């Protein structure tokens, strides 16, 4: 039994002696040193990656006002003019003027269609419809909740 224990001790010592760990650690240090020479590149790459991530986030969160305004403006019959227009992330307020009630009605119908299709609006509210007797033009004020 004593012999077995002695033999075990010798085997363990030999195994420790022939372990590749020291050479692996030296190799690791050497690689770290070589990689440290590329720190400038690594730093630049990290910054590019970080910036790309932020840019993607900004672009994905950006509201396409061009498309929204374009869609709304394209619904306007030719004889309707925009008096005022205000759009932000969630709301749209606009006042249009026209001498034709039929055209205004067409415009409202088109907006309602857009609301039904859930393309731009979730809700459209007709705030007021008035007539300016001096110019003989109707003024339509609407408000919409944007998607």
């Amino acid at each position, binding site marked *: 039994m004593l012999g077995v*224990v002695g033999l075990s*001790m010798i085997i363990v010592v030999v195994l420790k002696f022939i372990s590749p*760990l020291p050479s692996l650690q030296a190799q*690791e240090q050497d690689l770290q040193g070589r990689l440290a020479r590329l720190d400038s590149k*690594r730093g630049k790459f990290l*910054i590019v990656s970080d910036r*790309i991530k932020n840019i993607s986030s900004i672009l994905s969160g*950006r509201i396409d*006002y*061009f498309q929204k305004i374009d869609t709304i403006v394209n619904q306007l019959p030719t004889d309707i003019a925009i008096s005022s227009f205000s759009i932000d992330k969630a709301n749209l307020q606009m006042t249009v003027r026209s001498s034709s009630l039929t055209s205004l009605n067409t415009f409202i119908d088109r907006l309602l269609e857009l609301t039904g299709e859930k393309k731009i609006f979730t809700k459209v509210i007709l705030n007021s419809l008035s007539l300016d007797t001096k110019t003989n033009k109707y003024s339509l004020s609407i408000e919409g909740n944007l998607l």
Partner: protein
Amino acid sequence: MNDKNKKVNIDNVSFKLIYQRNKDFLLSVVAIFLSVFLFFQFVLPQISELQAMSEEEKAVKERIEVLNYNFQFFNQMDSQNLDQDLLTASSALPIQKDFAGVLVAVSQAAGAAGVGLDDFSFRVGDLSTPSGTLVVNQVPAIEIELTIRGDIVKAKGFIQKLSQALPLSDVVIVQTSGQTSTIATNFYYRPFPPLIKFDDKIKSRDLTPTDRDLLTKLMQWRDNALVVSVNQATPSSQLTPTPTATPTPTTVPVVSNTPAPTQP
């Protein structure tokens, strides 16, 4: 009671007798005790140490694999392309409040959309705070309120051009009244981190195809802006844009957790 207090006297003769009778047996017992002692005192700790060495060896091998991969990855990376990518990304998201770049972008967008610029005012943020910055979606931004001469259709064109201008912007509000439109826009920037630390335990991943596409798109926007800038370089230009106003990143603050390079 008396049995417990009874003393036993063994004289030398008796002791020798007992020893002679159990001599072989005693030697074995001593050998067993010695073996057990040696096993627990020396062999077992050595085996534990060997196991720890084996685990460390495995960990070092994994780290070497990652280091090797990272070394190959960065060694093969083209420096010029990387500088170009950094320049493009920093044009889109400057490292500081790039007022000149913002004015150039606004001016170019106005020129491209064919609208005239009136007033503009910057809102930099609360200067009483340590950062003194307006932060939108966790990215610092400068808010600028622009007034352009044009109806909603012109404003729409301006917004489209501005969305493709660098530095990156994000329109917040558009208000039009008659022939005047006011557009509030956030222009983003992102300072370099004070220190960059590398994690040598993670393999570096190249940019994804989506990231590459995005960089290409940004590069196109930047190039388009330069073309517009050259075409606009006339005495009538309102803000006299310059071809490049973006601060160029020259040095990157790097702190490595790796040892300093050894001289060959």
